[in-house]
């Protein structure tokens, strides 16, 4: 269960401050496939960064299964990201000279998983994201956009995280591929019992999720 309690984030701006996140409160049961909607610049990525422990809130709490992430020291935050969070980026952000398999194995290597187990799980995940086997050893910079995003999703699921945060995962893909990616995420949320939160400005994409939350002027409302 993910609980967000009155989270506020301020940035200095001129003589004052701006609050892209201003008292956001919501909760997501484990295994939920949800979307946060909002226009560009509405603060969606800022909220995502706070939920993913990449940034700290000015005030408020983020609680993951009873653990208050907001109060963890930096070293524990790294551990939290390593084991409990998966990221899917708009620009994939794979390591270009590593193969698809090696990219998926990276988070497991950081978590100290043994080589044999890493290889087995990576292969299984790549199959789950429907990347054909002959592409498993291909360097990431030689994969198509859709293929790279599949690898990115597989990497995000490598350590069986409780929460996957996807920031505009279909932003660089064509419509058809985008729909396939969204469908993939939905299925994985169920299969892996992972909460998947997608940040997007695409209404049609958001409609394919189970829950939709809209962020506007710093406040979150559920649709």
């Amino acid at each position, binding site marked *: 269960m993910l609980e967000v309690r009155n989270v506020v984030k301020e940035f200095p701006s001129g003589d004052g401050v701006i609050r892209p996140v201003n008292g956001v409160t919501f909760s997501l049961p484990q295994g939920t496939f949800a979307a946060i909607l909002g226009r560009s610049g509405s603060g969606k*990525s800022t909220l*995502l*960064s706070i939920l*993913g422990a*990449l*940034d700290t809130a000015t005030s408020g709490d983020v609680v993951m299964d009873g653990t208050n992430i907001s109060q963890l020291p930096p070293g524990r935050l*790294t*551990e939290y*990201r*390593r*084991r409990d969070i*998966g*990221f899917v*980026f*708009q*620009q994939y*952000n794979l*390591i*270009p*000279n*590593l193969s698809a398999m*090696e990219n998926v*194995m*990276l*988070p497991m*290597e*950081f*978590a100290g998983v043994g080589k044999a187990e890493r290889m087995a799980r990576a292969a299984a995940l790549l199959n789950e994201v429907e990347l054909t086997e002959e592409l498993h050893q291909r360097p990431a910079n030689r994969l198509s956009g859709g293929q790279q995003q599949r690898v990115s999703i597989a*990497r*995000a699921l490598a*350590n069986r995280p409780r929460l996957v945060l996807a*920031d*505009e995962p279909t932003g660089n893909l064509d419509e058809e591929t985008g729909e396939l990616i969204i469908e993939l995420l939905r299925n994985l949320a169920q299969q892996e019992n992972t909460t998947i939160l997608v940040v997007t400005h695409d209404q049609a994409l958001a409609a394919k999720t189970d829950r939709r939350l809209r962020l506007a002027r710093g406040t979150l409302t559920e649709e």
Partner: protein
Amino acid sequence: MNILARSMGNAFRNKVRSGAVILILAVAIGLALSMLVAHQAVGAKVAELKSQIGTQLTVNPAGSRGFEGGGEPLTNSDLDTVRSVEHVSAAEGSLSLRLSTSDAASAEDSGSDDSASDDSAAQEGSGGGDSGAAQSDTAQSDPAQSGTAQSEPAQAGSRGPGSMATAGSTSLRSAVDAGTLGARNSGTSDGTSGSTAAQAPPAMPLTATGISTAAAADGSELTLTDGTAITDYSANSTEVLLGASLAEENGLAAGSTFEALGRTFTVAGVFDAGTVFDNNALYLPLAAAQELSGQTGELSSILVTVDSMENVDSTQTALTDALGSDRADVSAGTAGLSEAINSLAGVQSISLVGFIAALAAAALIVLLIMIMVVRERRREIGVLKAIGASNRTIGLQFVLEAVVLVAIGAVLGSVIAVGASGPIASALVDSSTGSSSSIEAGSMGPGAMGGEALQAPPGTDGQPSDGQSDGPSDGQSTDGQSTDGQAQGTAPDGAPAGGPGSGPFGSGGPFGSFDQTAELIGTVTTSVGPGTIALGAGGVLFIAAFGALVPALMTARVRPIEVLRGE
């Protein structure tokens, strides 16, 4: 894939850039290793030369070496002063005399008879020399079998055309022919035409050294091949030691007699100093040499033994202070050795600076390249942190990438160093000895050779210092050998005649000092020992550590949120 494999892969993401970096590193590291090897090799050579100096100092009259230069001779009183200086464990004086030979007598005879025809004889070419030689052969018609030299001794202090002032004469013949060099340096050749046609046969004097112990004037043990050492060192002694070449030339052996300085001497023993030059000499008791040459109480040089190597420098200073710098020159070993050591010390400094500079350049190259790489991959670093990599893991990755580049560069650099270290060391040594030699040679002037440090015995026709007029100096010995068979002598001032790697450099006088230094240095052998390898490896690690550490620390400052904000 583990972090090392990943780092190796990352190091070659940009193959062209990585190749260029490795090439530059190879050159820099190769140069550094070459300088290191040269430094070690030169250091070993310096240690070898210093071991030759050992604990000995040589005291010469100020401004004089052997038969060159001028000034006042040392005395027995100076010897007592030397012995009273702290840390002096032993001091022995010696007196070098130049004796005219029976060859000179024959040359004088032919010269006085044919003085009017000297010019024509010179124009005829080598006829004068031949006639002189023939006459000397005639004069010495019955050598060897009786063991007594029969030749008519030349007049003491006689000076035929082109010969040098002497302290006396001997019935012996020189074992060294004048030849072209002797004729040229004795001024009997026509300097303008380069002809060696002699007005009279050039007279090659012999060097007789008065000693007071069983060692040679330079302190080295004399290797006797016949007979025994001198046992009677009194002024009335008639015992001498002959060099092997001289004994052979005159058909003498232990027990034979000959005339010298107006006294009949008996050969006590025959020694072998290792070279023809050094064997063309004789040793006699110091007191006898002083008395017979009219130089009672005078010394050419004093050989000092210091109680330990650590006290050599301080004792050298103390001796100079005790004797007065205007009266005595105190040198460690020979001037040539000191000069050689100073030359090599300069090379050591240059090579050390070169080693450090090349290492620093390599480290800077790695640093700049890695900073550029970190900046290029800032987003990637952020992503790695976002997916769970710690600062230490990421820093280690970049350090390993730098280490990979440095390691490959070091391997190639080692190959370069294997081929280049020898030539670089030789070039450094050659340039060092070459620069010092040009200064030395330039200080020579006409008349620099044939200098008459000796005083002719009273009543002789010595004409001291007339040797200056014997012709322009031509001390450019090409092989370190004395161009005048006697000018450098058997180094009574302490040069180890025939010493290891030294050759017959003699008194360290003005001529041939370039060749002296180079010959003293001999061969500098480059080799790679455990110490060199350890130091080289340490240098390479320094390059990698310095070059990678700063960029690694930079990665720790990258915040993953910055990466996402750039999305």
